[in-house]
């Protein structure tokens, strides 16, 4: 299978702060992938290195089989960045025509206006558009070159639920043309709705990766949480029957397991001094939070 993007041992340090910490990622061609993580996880830094805007401290990025940031890639890759204001003085149509002029094989103006749903506003100055409309214009600008790879940094920020749904449909239509899409998001729901492949990152590292189904399989786990007066060493928690993962926040220990009956039995029999037991089925959101949380200690078997 061919890779659209490969990050090999990628590191980016800003002074002492390590924004991206030995990241290994690869995304397949023709798929929609999501880089999912909380704010400050290193998503934008990673995207910036893939685009060649930021030089890695060490490691390598290959995009469509080439080193990132080459002239040829600028023809073939479209990007939607965060925090870019609209050009003043130009109308929607003028902005799109200008961007189309940069590329060998631009997408038609009609299709760009269709995708951004700005037909009625094409003669308006870009600077007078509403926040959501501006985001759609910026999205159309990223498509002006008819790119085979599309990188979208937090594409749905500022969109309402309805607009977000329409946007996901558009992304899926673009991918069905054979384009590769990589988007960053901090909404699990968004990654789940649109992506074929999700890489969860936290503190500059990949903490989980796979199809949404595979990540969801982890939510089939139930959690047993309790207080323990004399808990043994952490590694011993994982030896209990059926325990897949364990974490500890404050005094509470939380065990993730597929089957809890036998586990409970063992716990009650143990010398741990277990009290205040609570049993829950973990949601996808919980899994995400436990994977990316920084104030908890997680141990995965």
């Amino acid at each position, binding site marked *: 299978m061919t890779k659209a993007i490969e990050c090999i041992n990628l590191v980016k340090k800003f002074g002492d702060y390590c924004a991206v910490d030995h990241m290994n990622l690869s995304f397949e061609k023709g798929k929609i992938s999501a880089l999912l993580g909380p704010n400050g996880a290193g998503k934008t830094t990673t995207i910036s290195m893939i685009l060649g805007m930021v030089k890695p401290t060490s490691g390598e990025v290959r995009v469509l089989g080439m080193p990132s940031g080459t002239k040829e890639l600028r023809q073939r890759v479209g*990007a939607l*960045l965060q925090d870019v204001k609209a050009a003043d*003085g*130009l109308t929607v149509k*003028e902005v799109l*025509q200008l961007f189309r002029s*940069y590329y060998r094989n631009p997408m038609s103006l009609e299709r760009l206006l269709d995708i951004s749903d700005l037909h009625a506003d094409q003669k308006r100055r870009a600077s007078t558009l509403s926040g959501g409309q501006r985001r759609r214009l910026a999205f159309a*600008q990223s498509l002006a*070159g008819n790119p085979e790879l599309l990188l979208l940094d937090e594409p749905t920020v500022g969109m309402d639920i309805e607009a977000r749904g329409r946007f996901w449909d558009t992304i899926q239509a673009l991918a069905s043309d054979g384009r590769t899409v990589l988007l960053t998001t901090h909404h699990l729901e968004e990654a789940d709705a649109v992506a074929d492949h999700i890489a969860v990152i936290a503190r500059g590292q990949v903490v989980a990766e796979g199809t949404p189904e595979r990540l969801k399989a982890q939510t089939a786990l139930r959690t047993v949480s309790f207080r323990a007066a004399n808990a043994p060493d952490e590694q011993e928690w994982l030896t209990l029957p059926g325990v897949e993962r364990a974490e500890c926040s404050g005094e509470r220990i939380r065990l993730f397991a597929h089957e809890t009956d036998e586990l409970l039995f063992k716990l009650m029999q143990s010398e741990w001094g277990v009290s205040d037991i609570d049993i829950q089925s973990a949601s996808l959101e919980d899994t995400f939070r436990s994977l990316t949380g920084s104030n908890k200690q997680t141990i995965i078997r």
Partner: protein
Amino acid sequence: MLHMFVAQTKAESIRIIRSPFFLLFSIAMPLAFYFLFASMNGVDKSIQSTTWGVFSLMSMTAFSLIGTAVSQFGIRLSFEHQDGWVRLLKLTPLSPAVWIGSKIISQMVVHLIVIVVIFLSAGLVHDIQLTAGQWIACGLWLWIGSISFLALGALLGTLKNANTSVAIGNVLQMGLAIVGGLWMPLSTLPSWMGSVGEWLPSHRYANGAWNMIAGKNPASIDFIILTGCGLLFMLLSIYIYNRRDAV
């Protein structure tokens, strides 16, 4: 490549001309000051072997072009940097050379329009005693001389904070105009100001045109200071841009 260049130049020119700041500070204000100064001092009253009506026309056209170069080129560069526009363009196949080249060309097209509009307005209102050759020579001098102020704009555009850029740009524009003798002749300013003013590129810029309307050639010191400052600003801004890219 050519298509890209033409489209970019067209877009940059449209952006300047549609800017309300351009209409106000590059056209309306210099014209208003011209008519004010000319009528206050008397259109036909003589000054420096010419009349106020012509003298002030050259001063105010120079004032307008300095302002256009500093704000529409310099301050705009700072804003485009701050607004992420530069970052976005770098991701497209538009090369930096085509981008900056089209900015300079569109700026020069606009400068030519400014000269024509201001000269025409003055010529229609007042009876200005200049030969066709003088009109053209003065226009060309002011047009080509404005390149030095584009270089000053480029230097200002290296500032990443647009608010700082606006503040410094306004001080520069006003300072260069007033101390350079564009509003009041240097001889009427306090002597210390005059002795600073005669070395300023703004004074040398206007002085070349004043010489031509009096039937003389621009002084060689006009050429030297205008070209020298232009080259200095250009080299400095290229140095700063390159150093920033290397980081």
